[in-house]
């Protein structure tokens, strides 16, 4: 995939670019807002990483202008502060996701993957199956080998979110934000405890769920 990075901090930009290239992607980097805006609107990117604070025009303004011009490229905004106000402002300007510096590269990559695939998610099928596991997303019904599995709403949301991102790493923070709406980091392993409930209920089908230590989860076909 092809990503655009608009970030004035050279170290962070290099860190992101190298990581993306190592993961097999193409990354263009521009250190200032005007160039970033120009390339975001004229180029064709799967997703963009834009810093909130830039030397010329700030990230929020850049994004507002791009969105006003009809550009719909998924954008992940970077910021140094976790202030809720800033996050909301970024999202209001048209950012699709928000990440607080410093971040683990795996977190950024997982989010970019999710963003880049977002257009496909809008057309997600109402039924998803994986091996013996079948999910009816409209009726919110889950079966394993045809036998109904009784999931709590949050457990269903967890499974559904993972299935929509099949084969991709979904991080703990992404799940906290998406499933619980928690934009902070609880010390208790909320995600882990719910995930282990889900595993128990899925029985044999839990083999599709893979834990990536220190990062998150992947749901996949069994190789």
């Amino acid at each position, binding site marked *: 995939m092809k990503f655009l990075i608009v970030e004035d901090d050279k170290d962070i930009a290099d*860190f992101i670019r190298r990581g993306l290239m190592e993961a097999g992607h193409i990354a263009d980097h521009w250190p200032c807002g005007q160039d970033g805006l120009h390339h975001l609107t004229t180029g064709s990117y799967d997703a963009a990483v834009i810093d909130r604070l830039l030397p010329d025009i700030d990230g929020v303004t850049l994004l507002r202008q791009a969105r006003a011009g009809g550009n719909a490229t998924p954008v992940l905004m970077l910021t*140094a*502060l*976790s*202030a*809720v*106000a800033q996050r*909301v402002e970024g999202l209001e300007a048209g950012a699709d996701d928000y990440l607080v*510096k*410093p*971040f*683990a*590269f*795996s977190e950024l990559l997982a989010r970019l993957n999710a963003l880049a695939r977002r257009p496909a998610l809008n057309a997600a099928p109402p039924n998803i199956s994986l091996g013996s596991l079948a999910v009816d997303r409209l009726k919110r019904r889950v079966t394993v080998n045809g036998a109904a599995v009784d999931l709590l709403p*949050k457990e269903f949301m967890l499974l559904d979110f993972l299935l929509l991102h099949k084969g991709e790493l979904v991080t703990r923070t992404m799940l906290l934000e998406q499933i*619980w*709406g*928690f*934009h*902070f*980091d*609880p*010390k*208790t*392993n*909320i995600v882990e*405890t*719910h995930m*282990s*409930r889900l595993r128990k209920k899925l029985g044999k089908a839990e083999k599709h769920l893979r834990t990536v*230590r*220190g990062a998150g989860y992947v749901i996949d076909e069994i190789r």
Partner: protein
Amino acid sequence: MTLAYVGSFLFCMLFIGWTVLALLNKTLLGQLDSRLNEAAADIIQSSRSELNATAELERKRAESKEFLYRLDGHSAHGETLIPASITKCQSFDAADMPEDGRRGDAFRACAAEGQGYRITAASDIDVIEDTNTSVQLGFLGSGLAALLFALAAGRRLSGHYLRRLDSIRSTAASIADGDQNARLPLTHQGDEFDRVAGGFNAMLDRQRELIEAHKHSGSAIAHDIRTPLTRLRNKIETRQRRLGSALAAELTAEVDALLSLASALLRLAEVDNTADQKHWRTLDLAQQARDVVEAFEPSFSDANGKITYKGATAAFVHADQNLIQQLIANLVENALQHSGEKPNAEVSVSASGAALILGVTDSGPGLPQSQIERFEKPFYRLERSYDSSGTGLGLALAAAIARRHKTKLTVANGDPGLFVSVALPARRNDAETGG
């Protein structure tokens, strides 16, 4: 207080009035006496014999009706109603004095002796009494006017002072609420209040500088330390294969613990230093509490315990949703940590007057009274051993969130366990009633 002022004011007015009146009386009487003496002596001096004096007296009577005269010698002559016994000067009442339109009841008479006879000159003293009355009326009138004026001026002045004091009080209150930019208003009239306010503001500026410096040192360290920690974390991540996944995960967990400490410090500073309410909205506190209970339910049951929600089905407050979620979560985590082997916790939302009480009760041993009292103090941090989060900041952050919502955490020993609560003003649900 005001009555005491009015009382002493009236007393002073009466005292001054009385003194002035007494002095005035004395002076006027003195003047009258000397004129009477002069008139009596004048007759004696100008008349050698008693007969001459009689003629002179008649002449004077015809000339002016100012004074009345009496002559006492071989026989009495003149106004016989003037008592003969008067020596020097004396006042007397003469109810029988013939009324001639000018004479009153009270008289003053002075006598002079010589050439073998005595002349007494007398005058009514109504003039003096009239003067007395007008002076009294004048004093009473001006006293009342002065009193009313003083009351009005005092009221106006004290109102002015009270307003200035009130502005100092409200500024102090907003500073206590975390608004470091609040300053006392200046009128630029160069009065004492402006001087005090100026000094106060200068002190606040200095204090803010110090706080900023202090604050920034804390969050700057936290901020700076995050960058190398993140680099370290990324290195562990990329060298996972060489390190072995078990070791890599262990190292990552350690680095993550440090990173979350730094984040917690930054978050604490952030919550304490923002006063912006742009993103506050009306939200269902009961719903937030149930969501958190649901999120933590597996953690409690994994430890053979239980977390329950009790209380209102819907209860609205005006607040920052993210912070409220974190507040409840931090209190629940605290309960989980301090409830021993089979942790039980109850989250509740109940109405108390115009407020909603969000509370979390744990099944732990509670806190000694001394710690509870210290806990109530604004910037108190619980001892590390008690705090749950591992960063030592979980409850501190909860307290900061409470402060941010202009309230505070309250702790009390329940039966059993500790009851930590926060009161928030209840809000009508705009979304519901407004359609």
